[in-house]
């Protein structure tokens, strides 16, 4: 990278080579970032045979078939040598090195050809059965529901509990307020990985193992959320609260009718964080949820990929479905998310 590319120089009129280099760098970056995801998406539309092709095809190819009435779906081949060279025939069955083929137009005549003298007819087709199969062959809806339930409930509780704490810490003067705030910040230094074992004990004692609540409860108090909301609430004028008190509002009403609506921007940032955290969480759910009917999507994905005969067609489809909700949220709220994270400086 040339030195001049390293400096911020805005407001030029003519493009010099550094501008070209910068845009080229970014375009390459976009390919590197989106390429693998696009490849995942394309692959998830391939049938099992399409996935096994090597070298892999760009588009989802699979062998063309023809519907032959009571004989079911037959695969199509192109004969490469001999009598029927160039014709497209459907394979009835294969016996040893001989293949029995029929012409779809004249299904009554059976043509016997050596198996080697033909090649499959390929066509582009999106294998949507990868997706529909998720519902029919796996407990997929259950995983989706588990993930969704945890994400939604934990986020709502996080917003409630954290905003209450932030309100208490920002708008009341009481003995021990500073120590409490510092104590809460100190939990930043106790990442979940450190307390994995004891938390498992506590979850066991509380009967939370193999329960979605076992993932939800430990997550509802977050130092990041308290900090973020407190900093925001400090900027709300105290006069508003005094005005509300003069207006006969109870403290609870002040909290949820005045402070909560006014903290909406900070709550939105925290909500996005929380959704991201809970939807993607892996290690703690893996410890606390061991029965497959309480699996979240990441757990289900992990367990399927670990199985000996990985069914990649379903696994890829499930991966896509897992990333879709986050992607949709990001697409809609892209600006708010990036700005919120940049301003909060946390993830």
């Amino acid at each position: 990278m040339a030195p001049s590319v390293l400096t911020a120089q805005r407001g030029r009129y003519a493009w010099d080579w550094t501008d070209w280099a910068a845009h080229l760098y970014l375009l390459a970056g976009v390919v590197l970032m989106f390429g693998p995801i696009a490849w995942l998406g394309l692959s998830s539309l391939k049938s099992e045979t399409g996935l096994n092709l090597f070298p892999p095809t760009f588009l989802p190819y699979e062998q063309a078939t023809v519907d032959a009435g009571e004989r079911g779906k037959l695969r199509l081949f192109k004969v490469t040598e001999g009598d029927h060279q160039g014709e497209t025939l459907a394979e009835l069955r294969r016996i040893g090195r001989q293949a029995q083929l029929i012409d779809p137009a004249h299904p009554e005549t059976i043509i016997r050809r050596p198996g080697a003298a033909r090649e499959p007819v390929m066509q582009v087709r999106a294998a949507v059965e990868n997706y529909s199969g998720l519902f029919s062959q796996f407990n997929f809806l259950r995983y989706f529901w588990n993930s969704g339930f945890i994400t939604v409930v934990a986020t709502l509780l996080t917003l409630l509990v954290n905003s209450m704490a932030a309100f208490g810490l920002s708008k009341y003067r009481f003995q021990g307020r500073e120590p409490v705030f510092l104590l809460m910040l100190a939990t930043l230094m106790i990442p979940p990985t450190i307390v994995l074992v004891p938390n498992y004990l506590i979850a066991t004692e509380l009967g939370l193992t193999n329960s979605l609540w076992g993932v939800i409860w430990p997550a509802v108090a977050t130092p990041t959320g308290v900090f973020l909301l407190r900093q925001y609430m400090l900027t709300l004028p105290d006069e508003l609260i005094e005005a509300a008190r003069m207006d006969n509002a109870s403290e609870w009403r002040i909290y949820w009718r005045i402070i909560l609506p006014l903290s909406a921007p900070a709550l939105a940032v925290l909500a996005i964080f929380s959704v991201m955290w809970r939807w993607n969480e892996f290690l703690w759910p893996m410890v606390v949820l061991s029965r497959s009917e309480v699996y979240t999507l990441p757990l289900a994905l992990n367990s399927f990929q670990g199985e000996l005969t990985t069914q990649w067609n379903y696994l890829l489809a499930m991966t896509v479905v897992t990333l879709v909700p986050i992607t949709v949220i990001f697409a809609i709220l892209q600006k708010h998310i990036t700005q919120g994270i940049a301003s909060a400086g946390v993830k």
Partner: protein
Amino acid sequence: MSGSLSLRRVRKSFGAVDVIRDVSFDIRDGGFTVFVGPSGCGKSTLLRMICGLETVSAGEIAIGGDVVNHVPAARRGLAMVFQSYALYPHMTVFQNMAFGLENIATPKPEIERRVAEAARMLKLDTYLQRKPTALSGGQRQRVAIGRAIVREPRIFLFDEPLSNLDAELRVGMRAELTDLHRRLGTTMVYVTHDQTEAMTMADTIVVLRAGHVEQVGAPLELYNNPCNLFVAGFIGSPRMNFLDGVSVGQGAVEVSGIGRFETLATELPAGGRATIGIRPEHIRLDDTIGGRVSDAGGNRVSDAGGNRVSDAGGNHVSGTVAGVEQLGGLSYLRLASPDVTVQIAGQTGLGYGDAVSVHLPPAAIHVFDADGLAVGRRSP
């Protein structure tokens, strides 16, 4: 429900700092009282103690005869208009005004009736569905007042409500508030640091300094008979001129380097330090002495009149013009040695460096003793 208010030996301290020390006064039902004082004098704290947002360290606050020291803010039957208005930004004008009534479970039709009435009174009818951010400063101010009105309080409290408005709007709102007071007839307590607001709106002014009440009285009473140096200097704009000197007996005060002034404060004992004060409009410009002569004839006539009356008492001083402020209808001359400001009716032709002679009529001179307290005199 009487809107009288009385404070008995009220104190407030934040830790070791005494913010309010021993304040006592009474406000009658239906009055318009203004607390005025420089910033940090405790006037806002006093107001917040009355409305219940601050606790009282000692003493009693009574509203309508009942001691309310331990009654929560909301149950004191007061309404407050905050300096920043404190409108709920996420609610419409209607919701802002209705919020307090909803909190006490007022029936819907009643809420609508009261809000509509207040809105009509404040000319806010067409803005009811707007959010505060879509309103001008003056309109926000009116919403804040409307929010107070709908609660039908015993006393309205205003905490520097006009300080966020521009000068022109402020004058208009002053008049509106006075009108409102006349129409509602409710007790109003108003805090400001601006003595002009106090003079123009109040029927009673409470002058505060450093947590003390300096003087309580009607505006003109404070203006004409300030009881100490602080009140004398604080009330009136431009402020009263002060000259420090020594009492030489029989009401005369010797100001070193300037001269000797006769006053009516004959009971002032000789020998002590004393300060004389005179308002700019009470100083008379003598006819001529050297330099240029004022062309404004009317000026001279009145000056001449003043001169003649008090010639006998002396009290003439000469000085040079250090600056002139021409306001059209009035002019102010700033003199150097003695450092005084003189108000002249009409316009003047005097300019920088001109020598003038002025006369200080003894009857217009306020005298303050070494402690800054006014020494008895008749009002002019």
